[in-house]
């Protein structure tokens, strides 16, 4: 609500607030208080203030340095406390029928008058402006009336709701300018209700619409009085006094109170924008001035107006985010359309089945329609669990800025494809890897300004983070124009750390070299910088991405920069599976991990003493995991016909299977409790022919296989 006591009261108020924030020795606060005091004495309205108040402010100003004196500090603050009493509102408390939470109710003498004394004292006697206001109110109330009728039919349209909100909002502020407190309060009370409606905290029903219609009528009546009075303030006030506005406003406020129970201070505190002391302070001030909490907070520069808006929106509802998913109207409508098609398709199928003369062609056509409908439904439903990657991008922006500041580098960042949507579960898993990659890019990739100049580059480094749909997966890439990855340094480090032998190192391809970066504990930078941390390498990235069946690729050109690409499946519920068969049971492996399929020559298989099989192919030995053993199949011919080679954590493993049915989209279903003990599976699936399959969790699978191997090795040594 606008203050009617003018600018000076607010100066006193902010002075008072600043003083209450004083902590012994806080020099910044000292200068803030000094400025607040100067603000009061320099104000043109200062001379018109009561002498006691003037004297007090001047005394405080002249003895400001007492605040830094251990002995004089308390007396100074005692003096300042008198200011608090002076800056209490000159206006009588608002007519507010709802009991205030304040422990000290306003001590206004009981009055038979409907309005407190002075309530109408601030009306501006300006017929022209009053006339304009009347026209404005009538125009807005006409719009509100029309729109309310629309609202009865379509209660969800945000634009309709906004129109009504704006109508009352505009009237509120215009009325405040002209000192028409009654008009302002009434408009304000309805505006508050519309805020709740707009934010979804208050459902629209017939009763609510009637209440707002009543509000429209009320404002029109008030304006009618102004016009009837011929814009003579005394005349209109005389008529105003006979209208029991408080009762009407009490109705509006009750509706508001019943639905908007959460306190704004609580919300701001929860979101970390205000701490407890500030909240207490504002509440104190609120008791004295009847201002709105958020208004005080913004006025005192404790929060920005945008922060307030966000919190006000939260106040309206939307706190149960975890249990609900927002679905756009558009998507819901598409779903309804498709379900309509499905119903039609169903009756066509029935016709086809009932009619003995149906042609095979008709059947095919009907069925292919059904297929297309199912695909559409699947895509739509999946898209409802999707969230845009924007949120992550915004966090990465901060990470890059902070890391750049820590390392003294200037970096320009570009984000592309921020409207790309990802499964909410995927989003959770890619944030950490991305943070790691961008930090690496800033810390290790981008050179310092001097080095960049020496290399003939601009002193400002560039990082591009891009997200893009690629078929059934999302590709997120982080590119920098830094120094690139020094393959020789990587190899030297890998050899030094004993990860590879010099001979192996010499034979490695570019891709294999980069893969070394993702091995646990690998870090190329000799000097461990504060930013990238100790001992945490790219292996974290690999692990997280593996969890969501993704892939990491590294491209780099020495001197020109590097590019890290995360290839992530669109959703976790449906994977690209590679269906294999062992003893007539179907097992599904994640397709993205499959490197190749080998039909081994019997001579290519070597059996070690430990029982472990090795596959020798094109000069490379690959350990074979006999999946049949792990899955508990009865021991049979252990050399299966086919070996699928998967790549996991930089190692190759061969898995022996009987047959391969190929790549297929697999809808993962959770296994029931009895089957959950089967450690190597992430779920099951049902195929089109009704048969079932097990989806292999590759991480658990490899771990189980390794355990198996070591035990067998132990046995081998013992014998």
């Amino acid at each position: 609500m606008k203050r009617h006591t003018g600018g000076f009261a607010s100066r006193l108020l902010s002075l008072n607030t600043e003083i209450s924030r004083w902590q012994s020795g806080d020099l910044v606060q000292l200068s803030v208080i000094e400025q607040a005091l100067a603000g009061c004495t320099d104000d043109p309205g200062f001379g018109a203030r009561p002498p006691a108040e003037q004297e007090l402010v001047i005394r405080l100003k002249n003895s400001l340095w007492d605040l830094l004196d251990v002995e004089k500090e308390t007396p100074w603050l005692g003096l300042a406390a008198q200011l608090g009493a002076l800056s209490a509102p000159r206006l009588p408390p608002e007519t507010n029928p709802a009991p205030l939470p304040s422990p000290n109710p306003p001590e206004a003498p009981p009055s038979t008058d409907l309005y407190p004394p002075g309530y109408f004292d601030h009306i501006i006697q300006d017929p022209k402006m009053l006339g304009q206001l009347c026209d404005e109110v009538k125009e807005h109330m006409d719009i509100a009336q029309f729109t309310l009728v629309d609202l009865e039919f379509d209660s969800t349209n945000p634009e309709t709701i906004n129109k009504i909100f704006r109508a009352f909002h505009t009237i509120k502020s215009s009325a405040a300018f002209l000192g028409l407190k009654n008009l302002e309060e009434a408009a304000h009370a309805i505006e508050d209700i519309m805020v709740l409606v707009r934010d979804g905290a208050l459902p629209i029903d017939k009763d609510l619409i009637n209440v707002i219609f009543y509000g429209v009528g009320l404002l029109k009546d008030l304006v009618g009085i102004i016009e009837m009075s011929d814009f003579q303030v005394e005349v209109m006030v005389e008529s105003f006094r006979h209208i029991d506005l408080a009762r009407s406003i009490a109705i509006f406020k009750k509706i508001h109170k019943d639905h908007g129970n959460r306190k704004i201070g609580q919300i701001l505190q929860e979101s970390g924008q205000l701490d407890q002391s500030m909240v207490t302070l504002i509440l104190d001030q609120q008791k004295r001035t009847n201002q709105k909490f958020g208004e005080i907070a913004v006025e005192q520069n404790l929060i920005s107006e945008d922060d307030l808006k966000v919190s006000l929106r939260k106040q309206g509802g939307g706190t149960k985010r975890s249990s609900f998913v927002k679905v756009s109207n558009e998507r819901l409508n598409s779903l309804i359309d498709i379900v309509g098609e499905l119903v039609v398709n169903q009756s066509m199928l029935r016709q086809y089945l009932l009619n003995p003369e149906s042609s095979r062609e008709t059947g095919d056509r009907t069925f292919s329609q059904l297929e297309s409908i199912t695909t559409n439904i699947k895509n739509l439903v999946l898209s409802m669990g999707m969230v845009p990657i924007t949120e992550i991008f915004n966090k990465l922006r901060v990470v890059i800025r902070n890391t750049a500041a820590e390392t003294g580098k200037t970096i320009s960042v570009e984000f592309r494809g921020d409207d790309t949507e990802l499964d909410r579960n995927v989003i959770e898993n890619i944030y950490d890897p991305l943070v790691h990659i961008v930090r690496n890019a800033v810390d290790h990739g981008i050179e310092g300004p001097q080095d960049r100049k020496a290399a003939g580059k601009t002193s400002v480094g560039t990082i591009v983070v891009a997200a893009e749909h690629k078929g059934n997966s999302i590709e997120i890439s982080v590119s920098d124009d830094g120094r690139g990855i020094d393959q020789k340094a990587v190899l030297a480090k890998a050899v030094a750390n004993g990860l590879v032998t010099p001979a192996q190192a010499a034979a490695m391809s570019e891709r294999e070299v980069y893969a070394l970066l993702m091995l646990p504990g690998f870090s190329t930078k000799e000097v461990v910088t504060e930013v990238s941390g100790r001992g945490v390498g790219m292996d974290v990235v690999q692990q997280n991405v593996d969890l969501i069946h993704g892939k990491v690729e590294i491209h780099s050109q020495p001197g020109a920069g590097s590019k890290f690409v995360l290839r992530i499946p669109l959703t976790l519920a449906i994977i690209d599976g590679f269906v294999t068969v062992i003893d007539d049971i179907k097992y599904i492996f994640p397709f993205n991990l499959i490197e190749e399929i080998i039909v081994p020559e019997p001579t290519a298989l070597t059996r070690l003493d430990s029982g472990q099989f090795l596959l020798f192919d094109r000069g490379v030995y690959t350990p074979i995991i006999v999946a049949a053993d792990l899955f508990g199949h009865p021991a049979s011919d252990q050399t299966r016909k086919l070996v699928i080679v998967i790549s996991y954590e930089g190692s190759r493993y061969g898995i022996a299977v009987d047959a391969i049915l190929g790549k297929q989209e697999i809808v993962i279903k959770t296994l029931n409790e009895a089957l959950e003990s089967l450690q190597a599976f992430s779920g099951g699936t049902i195929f089109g022919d009704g048969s079932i399959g097990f989806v292999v969790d590759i991480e658990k699978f490899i771990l189980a296989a390794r355990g198996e191997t070591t035990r067998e090795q132990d046995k081998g040594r013992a014998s």
Partner: protein
Amino acid sequence: MKILIVDDSAVVRTVVTQALGMAGYTDLAEAVDGVSALEMAQAPGAAFGLYILDVNMPRMDGITLVAELRKLDPRSPIIMLTTETDKAKMTLAKELGATGWIVKPFDAEKFIGVVKLFVKKE
């Protein structure tokens, strides 16, 4: 007026120097720890009008330095640069004669506001 800036962090010294420079104060001296600061203050002819001290420093910390400086110069203001976690030490620093404190990190404008306040007082 000559100002002595004592902080073991080069970054903080630069920030303070730049802020003061922007406000027109260029007669500055810097020290990296309490001991060298004390030596500078004890040097013949040294007359600092303002001291700006870090709290945590090698060799001699800011709190000890306040006590030592007050023996030499009872008048000139001493501003402590503290972090939120140092704040508990400020009562002690004040008892030993520090004028007040500013929490790091601070923005240049507020910092200059404080320095100007002291200059105005003089």
